[in-house]
């Protein structure tokens, strides 16, 4: 179990770093590994989570989108909904790279510039 936890930690650390390089992407919750499992919720400016999830699905990337059965929390965080990716034993850093590239392609598809404004 310790090895699995370590693996998850490594992936989460890598994902936190890589995801935050994407312009317009905001991580919801802690940005360090303290109190953070291998689950990352985020928003991408200018793209609704359902649209983002649809594009990621097209590239074979499974994420969960929406309220996550926590509507009051979404209100409290002042977000409409979020996109949520999670990692486990069968994932590696190439999956994170795929996720990052999928998000970038979604930004291109929806014509969202780096400032998050629809072109």
């Amino acid at each position: 179990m310790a090895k699995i936890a370590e693996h998850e930690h490594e992936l989460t650390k890598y994902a936190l770093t890589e995801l935050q390089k994407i312009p317009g992407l905001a991580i919801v919750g802690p940005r360090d590994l303290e109190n953070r499992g291998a689950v990352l919720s985020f928003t991408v400016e200018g793209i609704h989570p359902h649209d983002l999830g649809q594009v990621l699905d097209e590239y074979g990337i499974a994420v969960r989108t929406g309220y996550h059965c926590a509507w009051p929390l979404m209100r409290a965080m002042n977000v409409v909904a979020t996109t949520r990716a999670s990692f486990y034993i069968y994932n590696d850093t190439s999956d994170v790279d795929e996720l990052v590239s999928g998000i970038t392609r979604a930004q291109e598809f929806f014509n969202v510039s780096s400032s998050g404004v629809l072109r």
Partner: protein
Amino acid sequence: MNLDSLYQEVIMDHYKNPLHKKLSPEPTVQVHHVNTSCGDEVTLNLHMDGNLVSDISWEGSGCSISQASTSVMSDLLRGKDEDEALKIVADFLEMMQSKGTKSGDENILGDGVALAGVSKFPARVKCALLGWMAFKDAVTRSRSGE
């Protein structure tokens, strides 16, 4: 299934420049609908002049499909007689529930036919119907004098 069949250019145009997305004051009826499974929401103001749908305006947040579809609906149904408007809603509903087998009549549904592709994505059908169901609810309420 590919993204282009879902996200037609017409849809993206309505999403980026939604029509009638500003609530007109003093409506005959105001309704608020939420798609609880995804969080899309719409507030719709309906102005009736006798049996005439004189104005439909709205505010809301949600995915591109829900926003574009509500924009199409608000532009298409204004100025129609309420029975005619409800008939168009029924036609749109039939197309959306067709799982991709019905492409819709452009003479009746206007830009709404661009949403035909959405009917192949079961998870997104509700997004497309949100504004239309809000309108139907508003008309029903205006009829019963609520």
